[in-house]
Structure formats: C-alpha cells, structure tokens
C-alpha cells in the first residue's frame, strides 16, 4: 500500500498522467497517476490517504522545485495534469462528503485583465494542496467576487493581475471585500504585484510563486 502511494506521488511529481502519456520519457509505458489511483482505490486505500499522503506531498515537492527555479511552467503543468488524472477518481468521494477538502478558495483575474496562466497555476497548486477551487475566470468584476464570498462563507480569495493599470482594480476589489466582509482573507499575486503593494491595499498575503500561497493556507486548513 505504501509503495502504491509512493508511486502515485512519483507520477504526479514527474507529470506522468497515464500509461499512454509519453512524458516523462524515462517512464514511457509505465502506469501513470490515473491507473495507479484507480488501483489504490480498488485495493481499499482511502481517498483521504491518497490525497494526504500522495497528491498533497507530491504537489508540494513540485511547488518547491518551481520556487527554486529547478523546473519551469511546462513541468508544473504536466504535474498538475497528472494530479487531475488522479483527482478525477477522488472527486466522487469529495462530492458525497465522504472525504473532506481543506477549505474553499475563490480565485480570479481582476477586472480589466485577461491574463490567466498565472492564475491557473496558482489554482492548480492550491487544488493540489487539498482545497476546493472556485475559479471565477478572468476580467472578474468586484461584484462577482463579492457574490462568490457570500455564497461560500469561510472561503479564501485569490486575486491576480498582470497589468499595472489593472492593479487599481485589485485595490478596489480588496477594499470592497474587506469593507463588506472584514474577516475574509485575501491573497494577491501577479508579475507586477509586490509585498509593499499588498500591504498598501490591505490584502492579507502576497507570494511571488504559487507554493507560497499553498504554504500560507496550510495554517487555515480544516
């Protein structure tokens, strides 16, 4: 059983989605995260153990490697794809309530900004940390963030911006969210965003990379 969890984790770390996937070349022809997760469930491993002992640690390794610039965006996305192929077998257990997530995370690119690669990376890494993702997409107006917070009490919020000119919309969204829901935690990120800007606009957390957000959220996991 332990070996199966280790193999799933290795597949996620390496981006080995399924048997048909040619990536990575040194695992060609081997079972991937898809087949191994199904096998683990068939053999009686709980979805919670697969999540906590394989997927979450594997995505943490991926996030740390990305932070250290040992891997690049494509490898991170391959890891996320492998995680998704495992997660699809676990989702029915989340939906039935049999297995609990760590919490909810609302994410979107702020109004006036269509860039979504960074936002998607953060969403995938946080999902890999065991959180349920509510992805509002790009060019998200403040009202839409507000409604999502009201529909999902206790959820955390992540705002992304890539343009200096749309950072002003990030500020407006933080102001409204904090005014209406002072206890909501707001995380901000994006290439032009800095820790100083985060503090200036009253957001709760900034990280230059996705793993920083995952690590920050750990303290709030239910």
């Amino acid at each position: 059983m332990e070996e199966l969890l280790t193999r799933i984790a290795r597949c996620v770390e390496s981006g080995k989605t399924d048997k048909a996937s040619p990536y990575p070349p040194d695992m060609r022809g081997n079972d991937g995260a898809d087949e191994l997760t199904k096998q683990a469930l068939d053999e009686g491993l709980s979805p919670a153990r697969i999540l906590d002992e394989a997927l979450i640690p594997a995505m943490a390794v991926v996030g740390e490697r990305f932070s250290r610039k040992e891997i690049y965006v494509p490898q991170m996305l391959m890891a996320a794809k492998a995680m998704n192929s495992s997660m699809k077998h676990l989702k029915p257990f989340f939906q039935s309530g049999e297995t609990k997530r760590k919490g909810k995370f609302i994410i979107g690119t702020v109004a006036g900004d269509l860039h979504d690669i960074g936002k998607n990376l953060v969403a995938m890494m946080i999902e890999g940390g065991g959180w349920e993702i509510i992805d509002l997409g790009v060019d998200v107006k403040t009202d839409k963030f507000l409604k999502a917070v009201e529909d999902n009490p206790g959820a955390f919020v992540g705002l992304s911006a890539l343009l200096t000119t749309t950072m002003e919309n990030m500020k407006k969204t933080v102001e409204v969210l904090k005014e209406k829901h002072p206890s909501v935690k707001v995380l901000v990120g994006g290439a032009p965003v800095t820790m100083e800007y985060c503090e200036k606009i009253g957001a709760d957390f900034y990280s230059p990379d996705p793993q920083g957000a995952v690590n920050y959220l750990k303290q709030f996991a239910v």
Partner: protein
Amino acid sequence: MNSFEFDFHDLEIDAPSIGRLLGYGEGNLYNVFSDLIRELLGNASRVCSVKAEYRIFHAAEWNDKAKTVTLTGVVFRLNDIVYKQLGKAESIAIFVCTAGPEVEKLARQAMEDGDPLACCIYDIIGSAIAESAARLLHDEVRKAAVLMAKNITNRYSPGYCGWDVSDQYALFALMPDNSCGVRLNDSALMSPEKSVSGMIGIGRDVSFDPYPCSLCHRTECLFGNPRRRQL
C-alpha cells in the same frame, strides 16, 4: 487606412522562441517538450488569421499641462512616460493588429480536454503571434515615415506604461467598426484576446528607444519589476 494580412511564416516564430517564452534556455530541459511545441505551433500556423491596420493622423493637438493629445476631436489622456515619448510627434499612427480568434479556440479546447500544458503553450503562441504582427506593422509605419523623411517612436498601448486601459475606447473610436475583427468589451479589453492596439509617434524630432524601460522608475510593473528585483 492601411490594412495588412500577414503570413504566419513572416512572423518568424519558431519552437525555440516559444521554448524561451516558457522559460527554457538553450540546451536545458526544453528539449523534453520540443516535439509538443512543434506540433502545437504547426496546428496554430494552419489556422491563425493575422491581420493589422493603421491610420495616420497628421493634426495632433498636444496639451503639455494635461498630458493629453487630441486627434480629430478625440482626446487621449496619456501619462508622463508615454507623453514624454510621443509629445514631440507631428503625426500619430493608431493601430490594431490581431492573431485572430483561432489559436484562442485551440487553447480553450485544450483546457476543456484536461490538458493545461497545451492550453498554456497555445496561449503563449497566440501572444507571440500578436506581438510579431505588431512588430511587422511597426515596420510598415517606419516605411511610411521614411517616405516622409521622418522618424518613429516605440509603440505604446493603453494598459501598459501606466497609460489607462480605458483609452482603448478613444483609440477604437478612430478606427473603422470591427477593425481587423477586433472589438472591445465593457472593461475595454479586446476580443480576440491575442490582439495589440496602440499609438506610434511620427516626426522629425522623435526617436525609437531600444531600452524604453530605462525611462521609467515604477517598481510595480510586469517588465520593470523582475528586472529590478535582480538588481
């Protein structure tokens, strides 16, 4: 109005250039993904419809105090950085160019198919196409300026260099309806997304700056911030 349709091969986009945009230098792990990048680049090259248009306005009215320029009654509210570069121009070229909607569709389809890597690569290819189209259009404006014995500036776009994105409405007001098939939404963003619009200054006393970021001291910037973090 000057309109162009660019052939994909004129854009000079190859797999190594996309690899570099993904973060890979020569000789490192990029090779693992080179086959995939080539395949997706081939798909994109077969479907993209790259278009560009520009229009030159010869009567530019400058307001040094308000940092505005007015073209045929339409006012643009520039900021200090853009005004400093364009303010000596005698004429202004307004332009729109696009990679078309096709590559974006490929990206969306890849995401729906559960392939975020292919989605990301298509997204970067789309951006590279739009930027290359803008570069080719810039060359066309340069040729037109040379015929007038004038120089040109860098190209500046609403949303960048601190120029408010809402000036897109003014810019599109000066172009024909549905220019290059590009439209604005209610956030002043273009659709197709992989499009570039902006201004190029033309005049005897303007110049092209190969290092435009050196003029700006903003730390909160897509281009300046990472560079300054390294310093």
